[in-house]
């Protein structure tokens, strides 16, 4: 019995499932089984044993036995650790990283979000041929930035099987953000299944891991609540489109155990504090295919950096972190008690959990998972769902007055935009038409950034949105934009094919950036899933809907039916990867090569 208890009571967890979700208390690598349950990776004020700092690093990629669920499995690890050792660099230094491959297959390490020469970026097929078995590759480059980052494999599915770790770069002078304690909180998704099997399952059945589909029981519940006619109307459009409002993510807690700093929820990673101290938590979503909604009940989170770049502090209760994003927060617990660090998956089928406590061994209450949300009309058609004259364009009977709110769906997000605005002109690519790999095109995408996304709207908590993020110091590139490139995120949920403009990586030509030009990238999400899009080697400077600088990032999460724009200064010569950071979407084709020349 492998499926998850949600608080809608639809399914009951069996004992084995509980262990699967909660994991073993002492799960993890051999090092952890040796009693490694005290705080790992405290940058200040505690244990330093898994931190490697300096300018020269020797890393060995190999196989290590792990056990997170009661079943021994082989993970791909760095120096035998999962996650790999915390690397600590200093801005302004030159680092040398000798990476030795002890596997039987080629491997690679990519330094995520780091500005470096393209041949040091670590993407096989784009930056270099990868690291052959037995070989050592020497990465050498100057460090030109500071903040919270991470590293991971860019070979096959090795990232899913454990090849990842945190990367912290100290600023050249004093740290601008003052903190008494400094912890990395790395979130990951572990599966006992072979990731190649996960990929094959999705190819054969797109909803393989979705155990939250609407059922007859939901239908009868709706009938008794809103009547037959309304219950049918609520389903009409989804059914006609052969889509599911519960298609939130492809891989779920049906196979994943979520980890915090390599510890299962039962393992309970703990960070120590003294009441009144300022504690910096550097959240890194190092998962392969998961979004986490993070909060610490009882504490306000002051967000101070996003993707390694300092932002004007903003006080929130909760934030969503997409795969590959990082988010630094400051908390100041005043009471002498434990607080739970709760990171529930977007699909509400599990969570990563840890504890902030004054003393080891303490625990606080773990919140229940939020109800499983439904995608809303906003997620399907963007701005059109908000009504107004745009609605008349919809040649669809079920549309007007449609209210999905009945069974747990959310109303449209709050917006400051007047009715009918908030949508921009879309230009679909020729290749999106008559293409079996495109199951949807959005005509009126939404452009507002103040939507926290499905499952977080109107939940009673102050949830971070991209509209809240303002990079300190503004844009690095004041020059005007000289060219626009529009790309659409496309896919077919049933065939499990993904791409840009309807084209898989294998079907597409590289994207050319002219060296030195200042580009505006326009992304329109023509799917009902959220895609964290990552451009290697150059910053992505997200713009507000009126094209003003918003926040500097390396990974930008694009919500369903959303149109976002960001600026890129093409100042890094060479070949770069550009892709969705959901590993299975990337492998299925949502990947492009960018050439700067």
């Amino acid at each position, binding site marked *: 019995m492998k*499926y998850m208890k949600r608080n809608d009571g*639809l*399914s009951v967890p069996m004992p084995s499932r509980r262990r699967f979700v909660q994991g073993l208390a002492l799960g993890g690598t051999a090092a952890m089984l040796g009693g490694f349950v005290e705080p790992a990776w405290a940058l200040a004020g505690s244990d330093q044993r898994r931190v490697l700092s300096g300018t020269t690093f020797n890393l060995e990629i190999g196989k290590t036995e792990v056990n997170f669920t009661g079943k021994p499995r082989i993970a791909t690890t760095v120096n035998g650790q999962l996650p790999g050792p915390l690397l600590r660099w200093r801005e302004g230094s030159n680092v040398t990283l000798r990476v030795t491959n002890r596997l039987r297959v*080629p491997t*690679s390490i990519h330094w995520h979000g780091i500005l470096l020469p393209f041949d040091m970026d670590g993407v*096989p*097929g*784009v930056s*270099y*041929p990868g690291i052959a078995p037995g070989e050592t590759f020497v990465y050498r480059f100057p460090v030109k930035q500071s903040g919270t980052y991470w590293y991971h494999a860019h*070979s*096959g599915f090795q990232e899913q099987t454990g090849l990842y770790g945190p990367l912290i770069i100290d600023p050249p002078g004093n740290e601008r953000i003052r903190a008494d304690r400094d912890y990395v909180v790395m979130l990951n998704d572990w599966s006992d299944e072979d990731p*190649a099997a996960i990929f*094959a399952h999705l190819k*054969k059945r797109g909803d393989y891991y979705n*155990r939250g589909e609407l*059922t007859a*029981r939901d239908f009868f519940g709706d009938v008794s609540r809103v009547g037959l006619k309304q219950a049918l109307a609520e389903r009409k459009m989804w*059914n006609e*489109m*052969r889509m599911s409002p519960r298609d939130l993510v492809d891989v779920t807690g049906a196979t994943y155990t979520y980890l915090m700093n390599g510890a299962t929820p039962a393992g309970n990673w703990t960070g120590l504090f003294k009441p009144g101290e300022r504690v910096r938590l550097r959240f890194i979503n190092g998962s392969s295919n998961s979004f986490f909604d993070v909060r610490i009940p009882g504490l306000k989170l002051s967000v101070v950096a996003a993707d390694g770049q300092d932002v004007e502090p903003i006080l929130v209760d909760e934030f969503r972190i997409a795969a590959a994003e990082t988010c630094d927060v400051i908390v100041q617990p005043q009471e002498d008690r434990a607080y739970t660090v709760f990171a529930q998956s977007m699909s509400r089928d599990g969570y990563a959990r840890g504890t902030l406590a004054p003393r080891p061994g303490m625990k606080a209450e773990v919140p229940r998972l939020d109800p499983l949300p439904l995608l809303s009309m906003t997620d399907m058609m963007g701005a059109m769902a908000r009504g107004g*004259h*745009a609605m*008349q*364009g*919809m*040649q*669809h009977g079920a549309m007007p007055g449609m209210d999905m709110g009945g069974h747990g769906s959310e109303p449209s997000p709050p917006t400051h935009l007047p009715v*009918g605005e908030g*949508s921009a*002109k*879309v*230009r679909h*690519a*020729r290749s999106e*038409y*008559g*293409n*079996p790999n495109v199951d*949807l*095109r959005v005509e*009126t995408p939404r452009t507002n950034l103040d939507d926290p996304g499905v499952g977080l709207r109107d939940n009673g908590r102050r949830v971070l949105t991209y509209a809240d993020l303002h990079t300190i110091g503004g844009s690095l590139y004041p020059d005007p934009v000289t060219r626009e*490139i529009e790309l659409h995120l496309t896919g*077919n949920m*049933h065939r499990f*094919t993904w791409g840009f*403009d*309807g084209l*898989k*990586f*294998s079907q*597409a*030509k*590289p994207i050319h950036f002219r060296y030195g030009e200042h580009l505006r990238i326009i992304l329109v999400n023509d799917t009902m899933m959220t895609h964290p899009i990552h451009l290697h080697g150059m910053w992505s400077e997200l713009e507000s809907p009126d094209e003003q600088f918003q926040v500097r990032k390396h990974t930008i999460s694009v919500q369903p039916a959303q149109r976002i724009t960001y600026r890129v200064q093409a100042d890094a010569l060479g070949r770069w990867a550009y892709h969705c950071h959901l590993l299975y979407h*990337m*492998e*299925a*084709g949502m990947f492009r090569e960018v*050439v700067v*020349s």
Partner: protein
Amino acid sequence: MRRFFWHAPVMMLFVLATTRVYAQDAMRGMDRHAMPMQDAGASSEIRSPDYSGDIGDGPMTGMDMRGDAPLGMLLFDRLEYFDGRDDHGAAFDMQAWYGNGANKLWLKAEGETAAGRLRDLRVEALWDRPVGAFWDMQAGVRHDAGIGPDRNWAAFGVQGLAPYGFELQATVYVGQSGRTALRFESEYELLLTQRLILQPRFEANLYGRADPQRRIGSGLSDAALGLRLRYEFSRQLAPYLGVEFERRFGETATLARDAGEPAFDARLVAGLRLWF
């Protein structure tokens, strides 16, 4: 001949129904997505997906992406024991494919044994290619065995997912000596819970001309309506219980009666649905 005329409209109806579903689907796609919206602000302007500026592909040594990697699947939609009014036996319905997103070799086989002998077997080998977001085109050959002489056909059809999630297969066959046939199959999955799934299934076979040696009359020869309730222990393994109603029509019914078989049969079925 008279029978043929009698059933011709029915046959036409099936052809029309299937093509209409497919065509409407394509049209609906046009309505909703492809055509510019009436609202001027939302009208689409088509652009090129090519931003390469004519730079060529560089070497891709070490590139490792699975987008086009071939996969294989074997599905036993039905693998069952049946107990009818007059007989009992075993039946199976399988599909298997190998290939990537653009091209697949698709095998289908359906058969029935009763009283220790093969009563009916249909095997198809098809080339499958996607033609729409939800539809595949299939072309290939079919071989029939069982009662009477074996028959071979050329096959051409569509398989896919209709609005509301109906899985459809519609195939036209052309055989030797001017034989023609049409096969239509539809399935639906109704989730009672996340694991308990009710699967209604409908199948109909039509023939252009009679083949008395195989006890087949012209026109609508037979139809089946099934209802199976399965429990998914895992996605890939689900035992089921169900009922299936089979009806032979017209000349086919007469030929069956002459052979001592009923024209209508109601069966209880128990089996496994499994895939790899």
